[in-house]
């Protein structure tokens, strides 16, 4: 089954135009202002006209030269009119396929299709801005019809009863609200705005600033505090609404080792990934959610995302009650032996080491604070309380949570603490790239050690590190990885 090179749908022109305008806007405005400052006002009309024509022309050319072609074993994308580029992506190198459908394209049956491989490029290897929504199925069929991997032939046999063994999960409104309202995402947004504010306030004329500050002092401290609270609440609500729109109608389907995640209100996003491309399964619990006993389940995958560690993971389960997470994993990841997980009691000596280290850092920070602010006593006291809160709770949680356990021949469980968030990884042996044991002479005497496991995540690596663990547990994991120990159970 081979097709001819095809153009994108005309709607792609809109996206190209949008991209082009976005990129050209700043140089364009700069050009106009430059011309104005140069006193060339009479040519202004022509300058703007030339700019507009340039943008329209470039968009049209980009569209005309952008084609894709489905071959028997690869997809070929050709683009570019000055520098021509041809991108060949073999089907068996595909890691994940994502489609994004804006609500206004739905009536036309169009969507954006992205294909990612394990290559380390900046974005998806293939990005088709507007194609018929049947294309994804076509590509998936082509992927399946090439049984290059053993796993895939196995799944072909299973296909005798296709829809009956499909696992699905659909988010309820209640869960969606729970997920959105407990997300710490608004904090990052708030910090970004604070940073911007800092930059702006630097550039604002100082006299203006002083004037505003004087007025503000008339308003009284209470009002300012109220204002800050209102802004925070607005941010919180805004971020929550964004999350609700993003995870609206979240649906997870598992069929023959293939996961399909659907979500989104304004833009419907569908991600497809095969189970054997998943690098690890992670159960994540942020601090706020730990009070509500709810967790999130994510997949660590290979993609071209450069985002933060946990942001580039694919969420397969936005929110689930802690007690049901094992059932969920059993249902969707039958290979992960969640039943063997032993509940562990924190080791006293681990607690000692972590709290001791926290004390070192706390003392150093306190010394710096005191040397800098000793003249303003109340400020120094506040800062010291804050820094104690910064160092001790994470150290305490780390000591409590860090743990490593070999589950069976194929899976390792590592639980780590990131500041206040608990992350439990189930890592298949094949996806561990490097394993590392660290131990100082002093730790050796006490039979303790650190363990680091490296996995691929996004387009870089993820280091999962547990510290101050019992040596026997670390060695067990180490030997398990090296293949020296057959099975613990």
């Amino acid at each position, binding site marked *: 089954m081979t097709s001819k090179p095809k153009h994108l749908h005309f709607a792609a022109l809109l996206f190209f135009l949008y991209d082009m305008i976005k990129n050209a806007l700043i140089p364009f405005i700069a050009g106009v202002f430059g011309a104005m400052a140069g006193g060339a006002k009479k040519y202004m009309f022509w300058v703007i006209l030339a700019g507009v024509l340039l943008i329209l022309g470039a968009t049209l050319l980009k569209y005309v030269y952008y084609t894709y072609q489905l071959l028997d074993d690869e997809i070929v994308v050709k683009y570019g009119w000055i520098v021509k580029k041809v991108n060949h992506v073999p089907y068996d190198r595909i890691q994940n396929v994502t489609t994004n459908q804006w609500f206004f394209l739905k009536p036309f049956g169009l969507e954006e299709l992205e294909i990612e491989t*394990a290559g380390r490029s900046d974005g998806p290897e293939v990005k088709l801005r507007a194609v018929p929504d049947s294309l994804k199925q076509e590509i998936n069929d082509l992927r399946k019809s090439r049984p290059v*991997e053993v796993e895939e032939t196995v799944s072909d046999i299973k296909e005798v009863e296709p829809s009956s063994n499909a696992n699905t999960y659909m988010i309820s409104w209640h869960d969606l609200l729970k997920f959105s309202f407990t997300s710490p995402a608004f904090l990052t947004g708030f910090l970004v705005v604070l940073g911007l504010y800092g930059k702006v306030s630097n550039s604002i004329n100082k006299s203006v600033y002083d004037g505003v500050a004087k007025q503000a002092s008339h308003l009284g401290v209470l009002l300012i505090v109220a204002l800050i609270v209102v802004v925070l609440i607005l941010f919180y609500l805004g971020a929550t609404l964004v999350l609700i729109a993003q995870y609206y109608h979240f649906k997870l389907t598992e069929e023959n080792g293939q996961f399909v995640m659907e979500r989104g209100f304004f833009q419907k996003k569908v991600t497809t990934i095969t189970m054997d491309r998943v690098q690890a399964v992670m159960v994540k619990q942020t601090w706020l959610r730990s009070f509500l006993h709810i967790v999130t389940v994510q997949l660590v995958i*290979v993609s071209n995302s450069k985002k933060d560690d946990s942001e580039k993971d694919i969420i397969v389960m936005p929110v689930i009650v802690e007690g049901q997470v094992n059932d969920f994993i059993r249902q969707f990841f039958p290979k992960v032996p969640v039943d063997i997980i032993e509940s562990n009691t924190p080791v006293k000596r681990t607690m000692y080491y972590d709290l001791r280290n926290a004390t070192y850092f706390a003392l150093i920070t306190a010394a710096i604070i005191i040397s800098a602010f000793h003249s303003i006593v109340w400020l120094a006291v506040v800062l010291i309380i804050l820094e104690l809160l910064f160092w001790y709770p994470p150290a305490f949680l780390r000591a409590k949570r860090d743990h490593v356990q070999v589950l069976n021949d194929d899976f390792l469980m590592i639980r780590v603490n990131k500041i206040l968030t608990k992350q439990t990884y189930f890592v298949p042996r*094949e996806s*561990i*790239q*490097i*394993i*590392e*044991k*660290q*131990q*100082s*002479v002093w730790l*050796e005497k006490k039979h303790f050690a650190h363990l680091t496991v*490296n*996995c*691929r*995540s996004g387009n*870089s*690596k*993820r*280091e999962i590190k547990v510290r101050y663990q019992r040596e026997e547990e670390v060695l067990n994991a*180490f030997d398990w*990885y*090296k*293949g020296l120990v057959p099975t613990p159970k």
Partner: protein
Amino acid sequence: MNKVEKLPADIKKIWRLNAYFDFFILFVVSAAFYIWKILAPKNMQPVLFRISLIILAIAIVIFIIELALVQYRWNFWTFYIDERQVELHHGYFFRKQIVIPIARVQNVTLKQGPILRLKDLHKVIVVTAAGSDEISGLKTSQANDLKELIMKLAKEARNDL
């Protein structure tokens, strides 16, 4: 290559050379500040002189530490390669043991700068899909053998990402 090996003894000379080199760079920076001090107006001179002295002191301390640690580093820097994995061991007081299965190796890079070329050594970088680790110097023939071995084994034990 089925035994725990140390790096070639020549690598110590390279490390010492590197230490001299680092010292030289910091010394030049310090000297630059000193020259600036001579040319600068009177009120700036004490500050510049102090900066120059501090950089010099740091340079000397780093130099001494680097030289002192060369023997230690070499003594406790070993590697072991068999048909299953590459193992690297560093340090005595702070021990690190790294295991990279050959099946996970994506590529092996040999690197040789001008200093390593003097002693006919190569830096060997073993790259996986998640990060890389390096053996800081091997005789050229040994590095090539190693590269051949790893690539041969990697081909046999191909495991797809």
